[in-house]
């Protein structure tokens, strides 16, 4: 059991972070904190992608994905992390900040319309209308 957890630490961390992000989006009454929860959830997914790309041989970590400048590299030089998940995460982080910014703009707008950021108060205000 300990062995299992020790060798899969990144996935374990990812699952717990998914839980924390989900908890924040469900339980926090404040909209800004909900958005931070969404961000946390996102980073957990990013961690999963980065963790599957990582490689090590006999406990020695490989290299970052910068290939040697030769036409036909030796396979021993190619113990490198996989570049494809890195690319996906790279673009996802940038799209993530764009998403966060639109969410924040909506929050600013909601505040100027209703004067509150708390979900329960917002519900009451909307019910009164």
């Amino acid at each position, binding site marked *: 059991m300990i062995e299992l957890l020790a060798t899969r630490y990144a996935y374990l961390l990812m699952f717990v972070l998914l839980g924390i992000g989900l908890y924040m989006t469900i339980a926090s009454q404040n909209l800004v904190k909900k958005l931070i929860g969404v961000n946390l959830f996102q980073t957990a997914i990013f961690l999963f992608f980065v963790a599957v790309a990582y490689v090590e041989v006999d406990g020695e970590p490989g290299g*970052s994905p*910068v290939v040697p400048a030769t036409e036909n590299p030796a396979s021993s030089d190619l113990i490198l992390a996989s570049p494809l998940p890195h690319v996906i995460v*790279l*673009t996802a*982080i*940038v799209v993530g*900040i*764009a998403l966060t*910014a639109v969410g*924040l*703009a909506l929050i*600013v*707008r909601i*505040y*100027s319309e209703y004067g509150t950021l708390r979900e329960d108060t917002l519900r009451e205000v909307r019910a009164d209308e």
Partner: protein
Amino acid sequence: MADSRSTGYEDTYTESQVILTAVKVIAPFTLTYGMFMTLHGADTPGGSFQGGAIIGVTVLMLAFAFGIEPTRQWLKNSVIVSLVAGGVAIFVGVGLATMALGGNFLQYELFDTELGIPDGTKWGMEAIEIGGIALIVAGVVITLFFATAAGFTPEGRSYRTDSTDTDDEVITDD
């Protein structure tokens, strides 16, 4: 506090000597570093997403030191529009150029075989990295910052059309 808000320029906090001096020293370095990261992304870790973000962050730094309103006045709207729209246009342009040469969208090796540019693939990639993504990311980071900093004004008027007269409500009331 209400007075200093309405004028926006005689704010003691935006003229903090410590921040002003530090930013004056650091900002050129940040800009250079962002450009280095963009230009050098082909052979070392780094690239246009990171470089563009750092270039954008330089403007954020200036805005914190000199105040957001003066920076907004200094930075022309057309600059940001040309950064963001120009980035997309360059990206599409490179893609369409390869199509015009008879290939697929972004088929870079045609620059080499058809136009005779040595290392055409590499320079095509550098073109969309430097000209495309870096400009878009830098422009969007600056846009998001200024849009969020301005907040929401119900009348929907833009500050730029106003002169910098004193009744300009810079910050929406809480």
